[in-house]
């Protein structure tokens, strides 16, 4: 199981605390830089993308560190690792699909706003199935 040399294991825990704390501080620094609190705010798409990429990468590193070092996933057998970690890969597609959907909705919403501004002509609209309501005969 875990490291039998207990002094080394205890030291590793405090090293882990230092790593997680340092990564968190770096993340906050990058985030504040990206929002313009440390010097001029970056404006280029590349720098903003880099800020976002670094934040996500460092968070994933923290997640890896917590799971494999603190939760000792590194010491579990392969079958346990796979049954817990592989299903998480489903989320990769969920993230891609839903974020794409959200983005697409934003773009379509802007189109809808624009079309609402156009002068409407009901007779010329296409895709309108019901042009006039049929008259209902009242029999009693």
């Amino acid at each position: 199981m875990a490291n039998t040399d207990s002094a080394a294991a205890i030291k590793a825990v405090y090293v882990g605390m230092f790593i997680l704390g340092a990564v968190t501080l770096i993340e906050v620094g990058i985030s504040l830089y990206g929002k313009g609190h440390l010097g001029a705010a970056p404006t280029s798409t590349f720098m903003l993308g880099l800020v976002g990429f670094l934040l996500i990468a460092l968070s994933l590193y923290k997640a890896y560190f917590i799971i494999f070092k603190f939760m000792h996933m590194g010491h579990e057998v392969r079958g346990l690792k796979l049954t817990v970690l592989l299903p998480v890969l489903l989320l990769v597609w969920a993230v891609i699909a839903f974020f794409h959907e959200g983005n697409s909705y934003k773009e379509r919403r802007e189109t809808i706003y624009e079309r609402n501004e156009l002068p409407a002509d009901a007779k010329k609209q296409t895709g309108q199935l019901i042009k006039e309501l049929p008259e209902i005969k009242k029999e009693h």
Partner: protein
Amino acid sequence: MATDSHVIDPHDHDTKGHGGHHELEEDWSGGKNVFDVSYGKLMMWYFLLSDAFTFAGFLIAYGSIRFSSPSWPVPDFVFQTAPFNNLGLGHEVPLPLIFVTFMSFLLIISSVTMVRAVQEGHKENKNGVVFWMFLTIIGGAGFLGCQAWEWSNLIGVEKMTVTTDPFGTHTTSGEYLDHDGNRSGETFEVGDSYLIHMIGASHGDDHGDGHAEVHYDKPGDFPGALVDEKGYIHKKFIADDGTRGYAEFGPIAFGSLFFFITGFHGFHVLSGVVFLIIIMLNAASGVYVDRKNGYEMVEKIGLYWHFVDLVWVFVFLVFYLL
């Protein structure tokens, strides 16, 4: 661990060739734990996996709604306050993300003390387990206290609700009107954030746009602002292209997403603290001494506690950092 003497190292399968397959069948013949962990620990892993999907569902909903919104409140504007009059610096000094970084450190440190408790458990050191679990509980309770302050500040002072987001973002650059309807000289740029104040509210933090609530005491359409029925003061402005407008609310979903997701995480912290207390008391009373399984209950609650820290990594990322 609870396995018997015939423990198979899974890495042997790769080196032993055909022999590995034979041993794999033996693994499943019953009477031993295939994954070399107890049933309870394995099920804790699977519970955490399912919980990860719940949180992922919430966070992905947050992401897709944020992607679908034309603007979004800037985190370091929304979360720039801290207790004790901004740590004694006064409310005119913004402290973006400082308080929530402190909250993150609390969770990291309590995770570390939890690992220490598990290590002492492996050594069957009862006093060590109780001591380190006690420190973990202090850390968890401290986090909950910080979150309580954060929530009460957002709800009570800044008037954010589940359906109202007073944190807006300018989509044009322009100049605010003063309370007589004239140009006030107070300008803003595209993308600048603002907090919509409320009638009679004593905003300790003025968020850089003056104390608008001084001039208004009832709903109505005034020269300098539109005050809605709930009492939110939407300051009027003239955009650079000459059009007039007033400060509108931010995206309606922001409040509900924030309160539900951080609330769901906070509820996990709360239940974690409760279970930590129960297991610490059990450990102190010597319940786990006779089991001679290296304080496995401490290990299980440890897994849960690290998971709470793990979720916070992502809540911190999407709500505060990005």
